């Protein structure tokens, strides 16, 4: 038979839900406010960090992953891992095309490879 484990029927107290809800509302207010402050490149970092935090709150409490089995967590992580593969390897092409022309920085790897062989 299959592995029966984990407490999928965990009842989360209403107070937890309300606290998470308030945190999410506060997070939204915060991220909107920060957008009006000039942080340069850091604006994006802050906006994404807050978005990821909000996502974690929703996933862990509203979606009960805090109380879920290891299998559920692996499934979720796999989803994000594969999204990471897609973004990383696509960027490895799209964002390095100008490197070929630019001999500085990583572009220097080509003469290096030529030397090697």
């Amino acid at each position, binding site marked *: 038979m299959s592995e029966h484990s984990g407490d999928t029927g965990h*009842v*989360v107290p209403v107070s937890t839900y309300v606290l998470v809800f308030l945190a999410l509302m506060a997070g939204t207010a915060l991220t909107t406010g920060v957008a*009006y402050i000039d942080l340069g490149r850091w604006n994006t970092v802050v906006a994404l960090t807050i978005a990821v935090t909000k996502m974690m709150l*929703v996933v862990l409490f509203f979606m009960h992953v805090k109380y879920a089995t290891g299998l*559920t967590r692996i499934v979720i992580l796999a*989803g994000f891992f594969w999204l990471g593969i897609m973004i990383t390897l696509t960027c490895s092409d799209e964002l390095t095309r100008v490197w070929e022309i630019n001999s500085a920085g990583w572009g220097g790897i080509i003469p290096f490879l030529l030397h090697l062989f």
Partner: protein
Amino acid sequence: MAAHGADKHPPGFAHQFEDMAQQKEASTLGMWAFLVTEILFFGGMFTAYTIYRELHFESFVTGSHLLEVKFGATNTYVLICSSLTMALAIRSAQTGKRKGQIIFWLILTMILGALFLGLKLRFEWYRDYVDGIVPGISWAYNGPHAPGVQMFMCFYFFMTGVHALHMVAGLGILTVLVIMTARNKFSPEYYAPLEISGLYWHFVDIVWIFLFALLYLIGGRY
């Protein structure tokens, strides 16, 4: 191991399973696997967005400033409220509350979902149409970075459009849940349809959280 063929099956039990616990685990795992496909479905657009944002940064900032933060933020609040009401609807079923209470939370969730779509349509998409910043349908933008801004607006409409389609599907699912609740289908032993529909609803909420950050707040609004 629960013996198959026990005389009395709880309501909602499907014959291919051994017991309710196995059935519930299966449906939860199934829903999570489906959400993984959704991550990658939206992920295709997020990948494209990431790359173009890097390549056409200035255009994307200019395009982003055509959107109004107040509507994006309001809609974020609305969706977070709907997530709370959804969670409370499931909790009511879990703890065996009267069906009236479950239906109350479900309908409140639907109202909030409909409010989101209404705001989006009336105050954003319709105005964009009037202002001529809908690529391919009504395009009259003449400002700086015109090609890149058009690209940004393509992303804006494709991403929020696909998200809105998911909201509409969610409203359909909620309607079915209300009917099922009214017909006394759920009990503290069997509420898996509520639970997994909740997962879907929260997922759609999460997608919006990212869309709000990426489309409205990108590169700051100062």
